[in-house]
């Protein structure tokens, strides 16, 4: 069910904190406490180092690929309080923009749906969230939400671009009237949903269920239904699935996916939004799927030896 098809030796000299594939799944970006960001070509099971990006002065927490319609662009954020946007020009990766507007560690970066343009949301331990919009000619416009999460924002995740109304009878030629939203999670144990109104970002919802730091939030990709779904995970070991059926986006209800015994660091939706990968502090990855009766079921659990992501990887390590 889950089988390792490629083991990439990143040669990072310290902990890896994030690994993200590009839009096509052909390139892998990794970042590490060794302050570097690396890009690998992993097509056909290969692993060719394309770039070793230096520029951060602290551990790099996250990387995010922009949609390829804007070129090959990668954003990274670090404990050094910086956000760096890297771009490939003529086959070479270079820093194209550096944002230093945060006062503390920048923990999360996330590109908005490409429909909105090139917009990057950044969540920082200084409690603020920055929104960097590319306005052309190398210029970026900054909007900052101060004190979004006291003592820190740990994660940001954009809502998919959905036009109010049906997907199919969308009038062609007209610029769709998108409502921009994103979710953030922080050390105040809260998940907040932000909505852009009149070019201002406003707190639309405050979702309260976690009893400790919210480590990650992941807004599920749209599958064409009006329901919005957000997964959140926390230091308290709990993973919640939040759903909102009403179009105004005001009534979110949580469903506990599972209570783990350790910190849950990361949640990630599959592209088709039906599987959630949960990464726990016990170094375990489990895959979850909603059953017909609405319960979330673990479909691949290392402990049960079924899918065995870690079991396989360990085996491979032994071989080496």
């Amino acid at each position: 069910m889950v089988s390792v098809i490629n083991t990439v030796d990143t040669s990072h000299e310290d902990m890896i904190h994030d690994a993200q594939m590009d839009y096509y799944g052909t390139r892998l970006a990794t970042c590490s406490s060794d302050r570097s960001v690396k890009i690998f070509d992993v097509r056909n099971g290969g692993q060719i180092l394309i770039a070793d990006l230096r520029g951060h002065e602290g551990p790099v927490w996250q990387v995010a690929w922009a949609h390829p319609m804007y070129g090959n662009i990668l954003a990274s954020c670090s404990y050094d309080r910086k956000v760096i946007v890297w771009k490939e020009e003529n086959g070479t990766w270079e820093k194209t923009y550096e944002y230093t507007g945060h006062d503390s560690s920048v923990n999360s970066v996330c590109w908005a749906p490409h429909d909105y343009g090139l917009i990057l949301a950044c969540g920082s331990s200084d409690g603020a969230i920055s929104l960097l919009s590319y306005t052309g000619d190398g210029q970026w416009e900054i909007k900052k939400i101060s004190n979004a999460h006291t003592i820190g924002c740990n994660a940001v995740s954009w809502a998919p671009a959905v036009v109010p109304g049906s997907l199919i009878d969308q009038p062609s030629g007209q610029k769709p009237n998108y409502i921009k939203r994103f979710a953030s999670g922080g050390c105040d144990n809260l998940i907040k949903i932000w909505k852009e109104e009149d070019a201002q970002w406003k707190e639309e919802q405050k979702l309260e269920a976690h009893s400790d730091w919210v480590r990650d939030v992941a807004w599920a990709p749209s599958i064409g239904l009006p329901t919005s779904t957000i997964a959140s995970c926390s230091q308290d070991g709990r993973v919640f699935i939040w759903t909102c059926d009403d179009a105004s986006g005001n009534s979110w209800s949580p469903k506990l996916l599972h209570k783990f015994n350790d910190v849950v660091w990361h949640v990630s939706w599959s592209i088709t939004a039906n599987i959630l990968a949960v990464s726990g502090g016990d170094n375990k990855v489990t895959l979850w799927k909603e059953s017909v009766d609405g319960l979330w079921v673990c479909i691949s659990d290392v402990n049960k030896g079924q899918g065995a992501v870690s079991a396989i990887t360990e085996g491979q390590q032994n071989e080496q």
Partner: protein
Amino acid sequence: MKLKEIDRTAMQAWSPAQQHPIYLATGTSAQQLDATFSTNASLEIFELDLSDPSLDMKSCATFSSSHRYHKLIWGPHTMASDGSLSGVLIAGGENGNIILYDPSKIIAGESEVIIAQKDKHTGPVRALDVNIFQTNLVASGANESEIYIWDLNNFATPMTPGAKTQPPEDISCIAWNRQVQHILASASPSGRATVWDLRKNEPIIKVSDHSNRMHCSDLAWHPDVATQMVLASEDDRLPVIQMWDLRFASSPLRVLENHTRGILTIAWSMADSELLLSCGKDAKILCSNPNTGEVLYELPTNTQWCFDVQWCPRNPAILSAASFDGRISIYSIMGGSTDGLRQKQVDKLSSSFGNLDPFGTGQPLPPLHLPQQTTPQSTVLPLKKPPKWVRRPVGASFSFGGKLVTFENIKSHQQGPEQQQLQHHVYVSQVVTEREFLNRSDQLQEAVQSEGFINYCQKKIEAAQTDFEKNVWSFLKVNFEEDSRGKYLELLGYRKDDLGQKITSALNKENLVDGKLEEALKESDQSVQSNGEDSQSTEEPFLGEKTKEETEDLTSGKETFNISVSGDVDGLITQALLTGSFESAVDLCLHDNRMADAIILAIAGGQELLSRTQKKYFAKMQSKITRLITAVVTKNWKEIVQSCDLQNWREALAAVLTYARPDEFAALCDLLGTRLENEGDNLLQTQACLCYICAGNVEKLVACWTKAQDGNSPLSLQDLIEKVIILRKAVQFTRSMDADAVGALLAEKMSQYANLLAAQGSIATALAFLPADTNQPKIVLLRDRLCRAQGELPVGQETPKSPYEREPVPKGRAGPVAGQMQMTQGPVQQYYQQGDNPPPPGFIMPPGAAHPNVLPHQAASPSYNMYSPAGARQPYPQTYQPPQQYSFGTGGSALYQPQQPIAPPTSASYANPPYMPSASPHSAPSQLYPGQPQPSPTSLNPGSSFPAPPSGASFQHGRPGAPATSVAYALSTGPTGTLPATNELPASQRTGPQNGWNDPPALNRMTKKKKIPDNFMPPAPITSPIMNPLLDPQSQMQQPPTSLPPAAQATFQPSHLPSGQPILQNPFQPIQQPLGQSVMPPAISKTSTEGAPGAPIGNTIQHVQSLPAEKITKKPIPDEHLILKTTFEALIQRCLSSATDPQTKRKLDDANKRLEFLYDKLREQTLSPAIINGLHSIAKSIETRNYTEGLNIHTHIVSTSNFSETSAFMPVLKVVLTQANKLGV
């Protein structure tokens, strides 16, 4: 960064880590007075609410206590698992008392909050600690070396860890080991620390340095390393923190000398052992790494000494510090900015007393060191080193194609070299969750590829779970069988054979000599009904009808009758008949309800009367069956379909199947389906699917199916897609309709399907199923994504250019992208539609071959782009191959083999005269073709360039509605007849207007979209063999239009020599070989092959090329005509030498090559004498440099000779002459 403030001079205790929300308990400190000199004491509980941006802590409860405290701790003992407030507050009092409070009761506001209290100690209890392994064990220390171990479950009598140390001294601090539960350490201001082993009940080691200046104010065990502890010294002369390892207890492992004055308290973070807080009399709060001694952080305090500092157990970034200025501050070590919200008014009371004497002890305070840093910085930087708890150790993220990227960092408890060897790996895994879905998808694809549709359907029928499912598959299967309509009828329950038998038996039984047909019919009706068919089976009458007429004839023939002329009706009728007044007779019969008589009479009365009679009859008769008969007779099936009872849809469908003309069949089925869908109940709605299947209406099937089923689960989508794919195949298979562009809904479903497949890792399959001929941005993008996700860039592919790849321009993307994709994908689609059994349009096999073309074309100049379709069509030359000669790896052979048996009748029947004379169909395609430089390489090879293929093409499209194919028909059916046809090409075509070449007219693009196969196929024979071989792609683009006619000539020429041709529809076949041989030297074909930019050259294609090339041998040009060659060549050389602009040179070069056609014809001696003579005249005029005369002769030749004979070279010659004239060479 400061988060909160409480104005208290108090000891503090955070609620245990398990507790949510976080509370902070404060108890008025002993030995301190605030500025009010109040001696009241209280125990308070505050809640830490971080969502409140203000600096105030929310006070939850206050309990007025009679005690002041030296130490306050909050243990998790008896903590409820549900997280409700509990645990035990343990306070050390001034008079040797230890008091246990119940914090939940404090918060509840109860008055009895003390759980227990003991006054066992001597002097103030300054040291307290809870065992983290057994939270019921509390250690306490006081004066006189007193240490007690309290069991909260049995609080009455404490234990001692062993004999008291001597000499007796105050115990200033006590701490349980963090790793080993029975180890306890205590320390005293004297500087000695003692480690106790409770199992042995004795001190096991004493730790002290030899300086004697060490005055231990605090001690803390290493959170992770059992043998390490730190001791803090409050002596200003030795303001250090010593780190000891009990394994080397002779001297400190490390000494931290970061404070300038004595250290009052320390706190080691449980969340990160590299963080040790210390605060001293230098008024600093430092956070240092005790393992290295490095100061990581200095808290921006500005005020006073802190006597107590505590990490928040639950929120590792938070700490509290209690200072002598009567304030407890809550800080975050993560930095941040203090914006305006956090300002709090200055505590004036406190500041008015300043530093005078906060202790109230009368001791003068030393001046503080940093009095100036009173203004808080607006920005506070975080720790130098990221704390452990923010370092994400593990992650798993999905990416496109069902891949999961994971990494993990193995926890290393032991620091050391092995950590260096850790390999930092990232794993890419394939996640497959929908096994069955994939299996079925594979089966479907296999069926499509192997064309084993019947088997596939059969399997589906056998596996069907429901009758409906079975029906659907049966219907689909029928599409691939002979006599599909008949089979449909059978499926509906009307088996012709059975019915015949039934009728026969009925007739026999009833001895039907005297016309008791009605009974017979009823009989058969019943028999069928009893046969399980569910209603008045209206079907039999179809057969019955015929029988009826026959039998009636019979009957009337046999019966004898009197001719009565009496006055009754009979008499009247007789009279009427006798007078030949059929109409009156019929009226009489009708009036008398003698229907049969009326009809028979009407037949005799002529067609007009008959139809009138029929009408009257039907108006009069209202039996159930009448309307059916009406429909049968009047052929008005629409009426039936529109008005039948929907419960009888089966019968209506059967009727349509039996009677409807091909051109109305689909529409009627559709209509019925629509009615079922709109009006019927659920059951009927699903049945509408069957109608749509009969109609071959894929789009409606999708719509109907989607309505009825939940289309979101992979398997139900699979259900749908299976049917759709098969139906599309069926439509192509049976009706030879080009499967129209995929409709919006289907496209949506298909892309959904492709997405699902991709999500399961089946990217290639997803790509294969994705509709190719849509310009919906969503699908175009998905296609692009899939292609790239495959990670294989096709041969000859340049640097991949994504359709997006431009400067970041957020808007207006989709348009151009879609356009480009469409340009290239259209042709791809065309390619597949040619075949008899092409894959569904959605299929690209192999995907790599088709799609790659997209990219090079984008890169090309706009004008070049016009031709890109041709380039993209690269593979199609395969389709031109005479099937008997070549077979191709992928689908090619399958495509073409069927042509031979099928072709002749088809082509014959459709060689419609209407098409022959029409010039436009010829010209339109031909204009198209010049624009295909890329395919040229393949068309170079004799095998592919020959007219044989057109025959193939014609069969494919040899149905009405494919007008353009008429070219092909014209060619194949009338070898000689082609001449007039081609002559009808407009003169302008022959003389070659510029635009004939370089501008594929807008028309082409339009037609490409809609009638793809039409404009696509036919032109090839006209131009491709000639134009392409001789030109490199570039010159070809410049090529004057004149070469168009030659092209036609080349193809038509062979048709004159059909002799010995075994295959009728390939009259050109024999000629091809010689012609090809003479025309194309392999070398040329090679160059042009390579010259096709970006066009992937499949192996098959090259293989094909090489075959004929080997056979090439050229005959010499007859001596008498050699002069033509030398003259023309010399002229071209002259022109070349005086021509200046490159374009002209290219034209001339090109002409030089093209004249090879002429030379070939000379070699073959196939030119008519008139032309030969004309050519010689031209040569002569060239020798005299009288080019005008040459042109005149040229015009004469062209106008009098067979166009097809000369078209290959005459236009070229004209170009040369014109140029020569212009240049005056």
